[in-house]
């Protein structure tokens, strides 16, 4: 299997004034062609930074990133990205949003009439696959959050990207809508044969969607551990209750808690509250 994405010794350092923050430390990761990889981790672990770096929206400070064998030097049409929200164009209808790439020179340089026809056929197919046929002429602000994200995914897929990067795309949706979207994105990524890198803070989502889960840890942002998901390739909702799923979930959650530094915060809280109740309060009352 060839790699769709290769990161070798990638560093990302944010510098502001005299302070330096290491967002990504010596990160090495290979994502296979057609693989669905999810990135989880406590906040500040650099999972979104890594995704934005893969997209070419943020330059990396050191190391090499290759996508489809070519080094990443900026955003490109081979790597489409789906954002959490506010990325649709509210002045365009659903179908116009999906066809937005057709407005760009990168996709229309050698356009023939056959291409135009194929593109419009593809837009219609995406509308149907994503369940958007009935709202093709609506504006995004007339749609629910879940429907808006369907449009965002369809738009990203329009130009047949090799790689789909998703930055907490369902983070703003309610639990039921999210489940529907999970099955939809699994179905579509299989249909489109594209490689998916999916960032989330929801461990259940990460396991359900991912063939492989990458756990990242904060301060400095780095890869902590990798997990192969021991579930059949075709996922169904009832798998969420299997022992294999629950066991992996418990392991990953424990590891996130361990790496997040939340434990020390808890200890500190306990120490503070003990001091307040044991020492200060009685003395205050004695006076």
């Amino acid at each position, binding site marked *: 299997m060839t790699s769709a994405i290769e990161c070798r010794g990638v560093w990302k350092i944010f510098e502001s004034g005299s302070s330096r923050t290491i967002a990504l430390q010596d990160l090495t990761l290979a994502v296979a062609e057609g693989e669905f990889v999810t990135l989880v981790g406590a906040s500040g672990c650099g999972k979104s930074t890594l995704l934005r770096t893969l*997209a*070419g*929206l943020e330059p990396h400070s050191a190391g090499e990133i290759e996508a489809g064998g070519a080094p990443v030097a900026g*955003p*490109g*049409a081979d*790597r*489409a*990205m789906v*954002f*959490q*929200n*506010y*990325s*649709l*164009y*509210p*002045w365009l209808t659903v179908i116009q949003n999906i066809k*937005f*790439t057709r*407005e*760009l*020179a*990168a*996709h229309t340089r050698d356009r023939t009439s056959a291409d135009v026809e194929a593109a419009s056929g593809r837009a219609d197919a995406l509308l149907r*696959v*994503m*369940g*958007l*046929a*009935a*709202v093709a002429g*609506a*504006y*995004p*602000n*007339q*749609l*629910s*959050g879940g*429907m*808006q994200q*369907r449009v*965002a995914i369809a*738009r*990203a897929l329009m*130009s047949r990207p090799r790689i789909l*990067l998703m930055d907490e795309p369902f983070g703003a949706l309610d639990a*039921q809508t999210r*489940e*529907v979207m999970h*099955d*939809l994105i*699994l*179905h579509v990524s299989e249909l489109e044969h594209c490689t998916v890198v999916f960032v989330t803070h929801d461990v259940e989502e990460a396991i359900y969607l991912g063939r492989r889960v990458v756990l990242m840890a904060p301060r400095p942002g780095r890869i902590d551990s990798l997990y192969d998901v021991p579930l059949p390739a075709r996922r169904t909702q009832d798998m969420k209750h299997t022992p294999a799923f629950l066991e992996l979930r418990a392991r990953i959650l424990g590891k996130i808690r361990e790496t997040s530094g939340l434990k020390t915060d808890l200890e500190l809280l306990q120490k503070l509250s003990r001091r307040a109740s044991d020492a200060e309060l009685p003395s205050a009352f004695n006076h």
Partner: protein
Amino acid sequence: MTGSRVTLLSRQTSTPAETAVVPAAPPAGPAPAAATAHLELPAVRRKIPSMWALRGWMSQRQYWLLALTGLALPLIAWFALARLGTVSKVFLPGPLDVVRRVGYWFNNDDLTGDIRISVYRVVAGWALSALIAMPLGLLIGTYRAVQALLEPLTDFVRYMPAVAFIPLVMLWIGIDEGAKIAIIFIGTFFQMVLMMAEDVRRVPMAQIEAAQTMGATRLEVIEKVIIPSAKPALLDTLRITMGWAWTYLVVAELVAANSGLGYAIIKAQRFLQTDKIFAGIILIGLIGLAFDQFFRLIHRLAFPWLYARS
């Protein structure tokens, strides 16, 4: 176009309405029950919402009733005060005196000519501002380097009083039409640049980055994302600055004018024609209101997606 006024006010804060009209996608969940078709509704209690509910709702009728009351009250008070006769007409002419003055102005004093020249000056000064401010605002809002170069300077100049530029304008431009237009330009331009830069800066980063990941070039992002995304806010800025341009009219017509509404007000002051001062001020207000409504209409026609609701 019903309810457009309400949506205009609430479009910033409202969340998109839920839609459940779509046929199920391949792996969709259970379809929403269609059980509401033959449902017998209970007797609906019509509770009238309190007028003081926080950000409460109000029917169109109630809204307009209150708006008319708000407009009528000062008018009635004015009527009453003038009728009582305790205040001399030199200080406070009655509404009828003012109406009579407008009639006289129209018939014998070339009111239409005054309106025409004032509208021309305001629109010319404002349009000149817009023509230069729009590309500058776009550049400041898009490129940090241009922002650093121009924004502090603009911020500095906009605090300078436009009125104080009159002697300079007379010295540099003279006392022709150009001078009057220049005063209105100075009064509106710098604010306009800053507001437009802010409008452009408010374009969500996700909209820009989405285009970049679809392979858009820098120019394409500006042309196909930033400009269309900022357009509604830019039109609002044009509407608001048009209002400011009108407030500078009287000042502009201090410069050796012999026509125009502002000039008429200044001249009336010299002859203690208080009713004409009132007439001039009210006319300017009404013309401004008409322009404002015109801009709002254009806004609704040009940006249907802002007013579209499912």
